[in-house]
């Protein structure tokens, strides 16, 4: 993956920059020793690493503003960072950049059940937002599988999703307001406990902007009352096509499950070996979960079981107890871990129209043979967000490149059938150079124009999202 050459005048100026940062932050909040900056050299896309010039860990919005003002004055690129779990290289540093980590900002600032909202500092982890309100019967809905580790900061920047977003939406649908610090240090408040914006929907624009428009330090999030209960069913089918048709029929029948998860045979086999969840061995498996009281669950599951029955399932199992429900989810939740046990893997994230599911899975199978690399598929079927996991061997020369080329083919296929490159992980550096398969130059120009407004010098997370070629002139202006 190509990254722009670091700006030599910035790297030469390191001592001065660090001195200025130390003046506005506590001593332990500025990290510049090479052995320590290594801790920030990569995110969840571990194939790429580069230690930053320095890393800072501010504890308040004012400190964030001070850091940004200094970096702005000194012309230093800034890479915002939450927990570093991005799978797209969204938080990958460059050698001339300062990592701005919000991990120390993890307080709950306000909970307000009457208005169903919570205000937090954005370094707080996703799961601990729910943790703060669950005793009172509430939860924060977006639930990325990384929720134990990932921060609200990264969730907002990536507009992260989760297994339950078919019903509850993704981050942008659950975000009410932010405190956003612009690259020049200006502190702004966007949105709040009220719904909808007075002017342009800047909140909607910030969410998913991958740390390129400003640093989000506080967030007002919508919280929801916990449902009375939830119950999954497991269904096995002897072809991907049939499983895909079943998904479509369930949706058409007017039931809206909270989750419809899909696993194919390679994935079932791997997770079975790893987690022993007791899955049936078959070509395709669905986990469908519905919520409500026991009676309501029965009502919905009746409809769903009937539809599944019409598609000749090889297995059809409704969880009869809490324990059984856990086991049904166990395999799905450990799918990535299971893959990691067998091999190195790359996790893709394209979305396709649900109707194209059988075709796309067949095509991925063919490509797998052509490239000589195995693929396992696990994904959110209700919304067409696929997660093909390509297995490769990082120690084998050329295998990573082969895997990336294969991945690019799959993503192009997603775009060709009417879908997109990324459903929830973000573009980062990983999909940056594929953007022009999905967007015409004018489409990208319109997006880059937005960055021009928020960050005219292109100092915030500069080599991400847009193809290097497309953003070259703007980044060059920054160096000059």
């Amino acid at each position, binding site marked *: 993956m190509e990254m722009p050459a670091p700006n030599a005048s910035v790297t030469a100026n390191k001592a001065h920059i660090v001195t200025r940062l130390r003046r506005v932050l506590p001593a332990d909040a500025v990290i510049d020793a090479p052995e320590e900056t290594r801790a920030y050299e990569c995110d969840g896309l571990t194939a790429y690493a580069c230690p930053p010039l320095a890393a800072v860990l501010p504890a308040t919005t004012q400190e964030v503003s001070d850091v940004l003002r200094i970096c702005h004055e000194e012309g230093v690129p800034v890479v915002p960072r939450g927990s570093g779990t991005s799978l797209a290289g969204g938080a990958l540093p460059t050698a001339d950049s300062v990592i701005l980590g919000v991990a120390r900002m993890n307080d709950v600032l306000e909970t307000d059940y*009457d*208005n*169903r909202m919570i205000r937090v500092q954005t370094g707080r982890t996703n799961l601990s937002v729910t943790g703060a309100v669950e005793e009172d*019967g509430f939860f924060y809905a977006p639930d990325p599988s990384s929720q134990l580790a990932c921060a609200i900061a990264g969730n907002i920047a*990536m*507009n992260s999703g989760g297994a339950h977003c078919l019903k509850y939406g*993704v981050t*942008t649908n659950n975000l009410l307001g932010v405190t956003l610090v*612009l690259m020049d240090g200006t*502190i*702004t408040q*966007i949105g709040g*406990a*009220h*719904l*909808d*914006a*007075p*002017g*342009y*929907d*800047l909140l*909607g*624009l910030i969410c*998913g902007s991958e740390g390129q428009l400003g640093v989000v330090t506080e967030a007002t999030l919508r919280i929801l009352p*916990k*449902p009375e209960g939830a119950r999954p069913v497991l269904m096995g089918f002897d072809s991907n096509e049939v499983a895909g048709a079943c998904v479509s*029929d369930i*949706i*058409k*029948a*007017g*039931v809206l499950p909270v989750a419809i998860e899909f696993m194919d045979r390679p994935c079932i086999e791997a997770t079975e070996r790893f987690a022993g969840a007791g899955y049936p061995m078959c070509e395709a498996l669905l986990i469908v979960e519905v919520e*409500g*009281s026991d009676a*309501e669950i029965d*009502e919905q599951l009746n409809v769903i079981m009937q539809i599944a029955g019409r598609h000749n399932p090889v297995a059809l199992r409704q969880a009869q107890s809490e324990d059984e429900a856990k086991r049904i989810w166990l395999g799905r939740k450990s799918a990535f871990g299971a893959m990691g046990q067998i091999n190195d893997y790359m996790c893709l994230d394209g*979305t396709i*129209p*649900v*109707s194209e599911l059988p075709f796309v899975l067949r095509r991925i199978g063919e490509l797998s043979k052509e490239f000589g690399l195995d693929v396992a598929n696990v994904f959110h079927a209700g*919304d067409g*967000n696929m997660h093909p996991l390509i297995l490769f061997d990082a120690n084998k020369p050329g295998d990573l490149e082969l895997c990336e080329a294969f991945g690019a083919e799959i993503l192009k296929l997603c775009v060709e059938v*009417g879908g*997109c*490159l*990324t*459903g929830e992980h973000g*573009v980062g550096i990983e*999909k940056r150079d594929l*953007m022009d398969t999905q*967007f015409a130059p*004018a*489409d990208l120009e*319109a*997006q880059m124009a*937005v960055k021009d*407004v*928020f960050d005219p010098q292109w100092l915030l997370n500069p080599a991400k*999202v847009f193809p290097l070629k497309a953003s070259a002139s703007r980044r060059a202006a920054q160096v000059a």
Partner: protein
Amino acid sequence: MLSPTTEEELSTAVAQASGPLRIQGGGTRGIGGPTPGEVCSVAGITGITLYEPGALTLVAAAGTPVAEIEAALAAENQRLPFEPMDHRKLLGTTGTPTIGGVVSANVSGPRRIQAGACRDSLIGVRFVDGRGTVIKNGGRVMKNVTGYDLVKLMAGAHGTLGVLSEVAFKVLPAVERVASLHIKGLADEKAVAVLSRALGSPFEVSGAAHAPRGRTGDPMTLIRLEGFAESVSYRAARLKELLSDAGDITVQDDPATTAADWTWIRNVEAFAGTEGDVWRLSVKPSDGPEAAVRVGGDVVYDWGGGLVWARVPAGTDVRPLLKGLPGHATLVRGDSKGRAIFQPEPAPLAALSEGLRAKFDPRGILNPGLMAQAQKADA
């Protein structure tokens, strides 16, 4: 008047425009209008271009009548999640509402509290910017984080950043049964507290409104439940029990009556054909009653108290009265002389908004005069 019938014609029309354009769909939502300039109507660019019920997605040209879309969805037992309001009765306009107009004004109804606003269901747009360039963003799939989300930006931009030519939505299944809990005679403060308790319960409330002067003239609090028949009865019973100390609760589940009640709320029919200005206040739900007291006049609450429709004597500026309450006020009906239609923004946000506008419409020809202005120094 410019009346393009294709996106290409629209693009040419905008590129060749030599002065301001007044962008129009069905012309039924004249919020802040009329702006100066030649009318550019999108109503001729019509048609549902894609509808996949099994994928819950629908794509339509911006000029497509809302009624046509609702009919196509109903035929498959589906619907628009956000229940868009029809402004005609409130504003006394005639014409055919278009889906592009709905998106431009981010128009949402009572279900906004559960299913989100128009912008939350919108998954893709195509538009023509102020230079005449055709731009697309988002797409036809419901999970998409590829690049910046200009879809949200275009929703509610009132045509000032670009003229929408096509919009794509995530849709939802229609429901088997609707029921409303009715509570009579509550004072505003008490009513909003009751709505808040209902919304904080696990019973999936899809509408929470209060009218100090309801359809019969007396205070009426309404809580809506939707879903499968048995589930709705179950939840109605549980909710009734939960709220039993609030007063006499009746459950209404006659389809025609519940539909009429919620249409009445959604379209603010209480103020149809009345005198005076109408403001739309967006506040923290629990601040709703306080906002109403400060503004005076007649009000209707939706969104659990967070949306307050206020009817006040013509010429009233409610913003000074609301000072200190977070949120914003929009003048929806009334002469805009001397009053900003949209809530003025603080300087840093106004600078961003102006910056965006200068990028998307460098000649400043799209609906000049609409959208928020910067706050005056003394505001």
